[in-house]
């Protein structure tokens, strides 16, 4: 039972009043931004990064994680009640959730979603508890060669799975890698791309980039579209689903948990892709697929379970390998680095309190969220009355003032505004900021492990193929890089053969 000791100690960490409080703050903020269309969890976490400077690492990550999975719960509410997905991962919930609401079963839909989310999240935490230490111990032997290959594969996967044109995502990733080289070269001590600026001598901080690209960029982008105040919906009654409903949805919830857990682990996977996949799977499995889109409870329960399970399991690559699987995890990575903790295989061993504290906080967070989304759902619906016109300047000011407090420097604020412009233009021109931030975070790790392994191999790049794991990862890299080129051809043949189309082919946004 030695294995369980650190797990139990993790509960002690969570139950400290400060951590409980930050967990509550995190899930409430997550729920709120989930309900409000516009700002997503990545933007919110980016904006709130300065808040985490003065607290313990475990407390900071507990709060940020709460925002992330809390948003998955909140996004459901507006999908069901208003046909307005609050989050990308709740888009498919609209199809059946809103129909259920129209049939007077809004409460049932919300209840099923909340219970599904809870079960999916909890199942995923249990999976995480058992799987993460195994992966971490496996990765302990990783040397620089494996890390270079892993980082390359991670960046490539996130770039190719992300929304929009793949070339553009790869360009964004290249820009991120280039930005990471600004500052002093760790090997030779020479300055790179600093243009004589002292402010740039130590490189660009992660926080202003994230706050600018995700936070301010998104705020500016949203200014272009008017969000009028949504009509407050009719009263929600009876959120407790009946036994029959639960029975009907139980299969979907079980399948959603497993599917979400698996998709969350994959780099580039995540909550959105999991909810889409679950909807498609439920529709395919159903005896009467025509019920879907007309208020099928499985169409709500499945995706909502899957997105929560995926949100939780996407912590596995971050906490065990130190490779963020999506943009939100890249922000967590950055937040940990700020705290002087480098996520990686040693994390479980060296910081068991942090690792198990964060993991176990998710149980508490999920319970809090279940309470908030069942009895207190009416309160959150009222938030919809807050108009975007009021929210936008408030969030913009929080971003600017928050950026100042990081180092008490106006230079950081200026950087945030500059990256805000870049982020806005990127979105306008169809470039996702996610791969950029992810590549920036992994940039210095990638460069140093690449250079270190080349030293070991005496400068021979083929040396990477002399180690089985790095070889396998690099072969996977080549496959992922080449596959998009071949896939249209394969798809063409497939469509010609069957003439079927997949209506839920919506891509992940990171």
């Amino acid at each position, binding site marked *: 039972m030695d294995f369980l000791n650190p797990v139990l100690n993790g509960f002690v960490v969570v139950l400290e009043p400060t951590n409980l409080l930050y967990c509550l703050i995190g899930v409430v903020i997550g729920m709120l931004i989930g309900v409000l*269309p*516009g700002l997503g969890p990545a*933007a919110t976490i980016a904006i709130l990064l300065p808040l985490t400077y003065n607290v313990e690492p475990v407390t900071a990550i507990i709060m940020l994680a709460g925002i992330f999975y809390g*948003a998955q719960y909140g*996004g459901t509410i507006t999908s069901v009640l208003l*046909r*307005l*997905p609050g*989050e*990308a991962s709740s888009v*498919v919930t609209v*199809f059946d959730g809103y129909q259920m609401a129209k049939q007077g079963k809004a409460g049932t839909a919300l209840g099923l979603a909340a219970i599904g989310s809870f079960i999916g999240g909890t199942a995923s935490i249990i999976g995480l508890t058992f799987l993460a230490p195994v992966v971490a111990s496996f990765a302990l032997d990783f040397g620089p060669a494996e890390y270079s290959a892993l980082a390359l594969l991670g960046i490539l996967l996130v770039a190719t799975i992300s*929304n*929009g*044109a793949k*070339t*553009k995502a790869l*360009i964004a990733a290249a*820009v991120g890698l*280039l930005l990471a080289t600004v500052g002093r070269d760790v090997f030779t001590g020479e300055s*790179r*791309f600093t243009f004589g600026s002292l402010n740039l001598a130590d490189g660009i901080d992660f926080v202003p980039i994230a706050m600018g690209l995700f936070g301010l960029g*998104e705020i*500016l982008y*949203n*200014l*272009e*579209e*008017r969000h009028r105040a*949504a009509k407050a919906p009719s009263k929600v009654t009876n959120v407790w689903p009946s036994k029959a409903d639960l029975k009907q949805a139980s299969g979907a919830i079980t399948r959603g948990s497993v599917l979400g857990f698996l998709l969350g682990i994959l780099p580039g996977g995540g909550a*959105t892709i999991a909810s889409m996949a679950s909807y498609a799977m439920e529709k395919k499995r159903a005896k009467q697929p025509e019920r*879907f*889109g007309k208020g099928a409870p499985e169409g709500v329960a499945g995706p909502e379970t899957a997105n929560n399970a995926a949100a939780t399991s996407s912590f596995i690559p971050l906490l065990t390998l130190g490779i963020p699987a999506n943009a939100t995890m890249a922000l967590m990575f950055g937040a940990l680095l700020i705290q002087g903790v480098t996520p990686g295989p040693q994390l479980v061993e060296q910081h068991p309190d942090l690792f198990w504290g964060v993991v176990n906080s998710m149980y508490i967070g999920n319970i809090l969220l279940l309470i908030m989304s069942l009895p207190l759902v009416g309160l959150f619906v009222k938030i919809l009355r807050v*108009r975007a*016109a*009021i929210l*936008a300047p408030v969030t*913009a*000011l929080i971003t*600017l*003032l928050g950026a*100042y*407090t990081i180092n008490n420097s106006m230079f950081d*604020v200026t950087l945030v*505004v500059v990256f805000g412009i870049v982020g806005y233009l990127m979105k*306008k*021109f*169809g*470039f996702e900021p*996610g791969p950029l931030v992810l590549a920036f975070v992994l940039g210095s790790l990638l460069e140093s492990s690449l*250079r270190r392994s080349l030293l070991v191999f005496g*400068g*021979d*790049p083929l040396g990477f193929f002399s180690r089985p794991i790095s070889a396998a990862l690099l072969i996977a890299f080549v496959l992922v890089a080449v596959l998009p080129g071949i896939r249209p051809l394969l798809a063409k043949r497939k469509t010609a053969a069957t003439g*079927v*189309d997949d*209506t839920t*082919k*919506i891509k992940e*946004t990171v």
Partner: protein
Amino acid sequence: MTPLKESNSVTAGGDTLSDVTSGGNAPGPVPDDSLEDLTAEQLAAQWEDEKPPAAGALANAASSLVVLGVGVGAVVLSLAMGLGTPAAPEPGLWPFIISCVMVLLGLFQLVMGRHNRDAEKFTRMSAAPVTGLVTLAAMVAVMPLIGFELPSLVLCIIWMKFLGGETWRSTLLISAIVVAAFYGIFVAALGTSIPHLF
């Protein structure tokens, strides 16, 4: 006014419904009175229609050229830093590799991306983010001189009244409350060193 009219933003962390109806069976325009009974496919198509108009080849050329420009500039700068050999790299080698990849990707995008429609046109609505940017830049410029209070107040008023279309009464009232709240949090409670006038 149905809720759908207001739902043109599903952009939680990026846009979402880029190619929902992939098989090319996109349903035709849906008459307004049947909005309540859309199928999933129709709803997705509806969202697609409400997205801002796509920009054409010019936007692609412009963004590709910016990428090329940055890439070429970085190539030149990294060459100046010295490349060395893989076994004994100098500081320029790694940036050189990345910037070469960037140049290649930029060229690829310039040629192959001509017919992509994933960029958005700048419309009259784009004046709002530009105005927003100008106010933000102005705030950054004057904040060290006169503190954050007055610039924040002006920013709130401009964003709420002119960008958001609030009434004067609620604009003034809420702006004052917001600035007071920020003063309370950042100056009085947290004691940060944010430049402040009062």
